[in-house]
């Protein structure tokens, strides 16, 4: 497990949480950690300013079922590019990849943003106004579809 990550003790499926790139928005990350943990997941939280490489390394090490990426500061589009490809290279081709927050620069039509990140290989995309509950509900569905239940 990466040295600075905080981890809970639940026995549910493991997920990696973090804020990507040079993004320092810490508040939402803190709340997401708590919420996912309360929902029964084993959350490995890498905090803010996490690189793609750090996400992937943590996922390999902990055999995580999902990587949940936040991006608030607007550079999400640049920071997330090639993430899925890197996962595939690292042998994590099938891992669930979620992203949420204020993903692009400016107030954007969400449908366009969603399409953009779906095309990059993210399984689920969440825009401003989506809270942890939306991510949790989706994760329940998606993991159940893969035969994993939690919570």
């Amino acid at each position, binding site marked *: 497990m990466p040295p600075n990550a905080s981890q809970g003790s639940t026995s549910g499926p493991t997920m990696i949480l973090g804020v990507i790139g040079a993004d320092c928005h810490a508040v939402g990350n*803190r709340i997401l950690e708590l919420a996912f943990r309360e929902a029964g997941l084993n959350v490995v939280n890498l905090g803010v*300013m996490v690189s793609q490489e750090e996400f992937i390394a943590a996922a390999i090490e902990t055999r995580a079922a999902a990587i949940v990426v936040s991006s608030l500061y607007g*550079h999400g589009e640049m920071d997330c590019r090639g993430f899925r490809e890197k996962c595939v290279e690292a042998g994590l081709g099938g891992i669930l990849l979620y992203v949420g927050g*204020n993903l*692009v*620069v*400016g107030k954007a039509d969400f449908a366009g943003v969603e399409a953009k990140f779906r095309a990059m290989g993210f399984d689920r995309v969440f825009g401003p106004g989506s809270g942890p509950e939306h991510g949790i509900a989706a994760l329940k569905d998606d993991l159940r579809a893969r035969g994993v239940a939690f919570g």
Partner: protein
Amino acid sequence: MDLASGRIPIDAFMKERPAVLAAWPTGREVERLEDGFACQAAVPEAKRFAAALDRADAAGESLVQPRAGVCLVDEHIKLLRQLEAQGGADLLPTTIDSYTRQNRYAEAAAGIEESKATGRSLLNGFPAVNHGVEACRRVTAAVGRPVQVRHGTPDARLLAEITLAGGFTAYEGGGISYNIPYAKNVPLDRSIAWWQYCDRLVGLYAENGVVVNREPFGPLTGTMVPPCISNAVAVIEALLAAEQGVRSISVGYGQCGNLYQDVAAVQSLRGLCRTYLERFGWGDVRLSTVFHQWMGGFPTDEAQAFAVISWGTVAAAFSRATKIISKTPHEASGIPTAEANVAGLKTTRQVLCMFREQQDIASAEVERERAQIDRETSLLIETALRLGEGSIAAGAVRAFQAGALDVPFAPSRAARGAVMPVRDLHGAVRFFDFGGLPFDEGIKDFHRRAVSERARAERRQPSFQMVTDDIYAVSKGRLVGKPR
């Protein structure tokens, strides 16, 4: 450069300088400091930030300033002109992008290229270092109002060199306030030393006849930061700046939400900062105050956002801050368009002009809050000074190490992150967890009572759930987070 105790000797500064300028090719453009002095000396009085603040302060008026920055130079100029002409901004910003803030100039360069290619700004601000001195001069020359650099950069030395030489007359930030909320792994002694460099640079400009305004970033993490914490950091950064020869300082405060606490906090900030500057022999530094409209999470609905902007302006008006930083109806969604930014400015101006003439709120609540904030803030500052054993900078570093200074929700490892704020019954921000803050029992009791009063009213135990509810509250249309 090491953490200096006292003003950095000029030869030490000059020895450090070549490495700073070497960090990116544009650094070469500012090798001759005299060019920067000459550029600044040519800026007319009406466009000097410090002078505008002095005038406003003398007249008892509040100036309004938005945040704004886009990737490309011409687009950025167009944006600032719109904010000036249509929004009537008194003061202009140039917000720097997040790659530049992390000194990731290569990534900023990629952002510039892609922005050019796609025709939309892919960066969340203006990459001034990459654009270089001439571009900065084009920006500052293109508008009729003073322009400030606003960012969030732990190591802002090269950015300072380039933007000051580029004619910007004010520079935001500080070794604490631009590290703790903005970074993860930067040691505090590093960022404070870097900012001593920046302040020394501003001091050099002052020695050469041009006063550049400096503004510690008041709101820190923008999320229920108790006034004593942000005020203590602001005063310490003001002292650090004055120590390096800075002549014009604006100390800022981010709205907490309760009107009486907000008004008291700004009064206390101004009063204490003046007192401490005098105590250290810098009583002749020009001091002004800044009020940031609500810095926490906004509602996504624009009508509600307008309410939050107005509410902040009411508190700002009654606090008699010299400057108000305005938000926009797009706050919750993304970097605002020029139009949204103009709308925020107009709402702010309207509320300001309707309240500004009204009498001060001279109520017992304000007095009480002010006494409380004075007491807590002094305690924090005194502890840091004592720990520094004569060095303000070292005191700040040691205080954070000891948890005697701390910031809630800070991403940085340099803060212990043990303090936890929560609202009381009336929405004032109190302490739920004191972490390692050196408070006496009297202060602690005050907060405990306030928190348990609220808990009783809501029929629940004080808990982190209460804090979470508070964090969401404003974005969900309340001030105090209610049990779900």
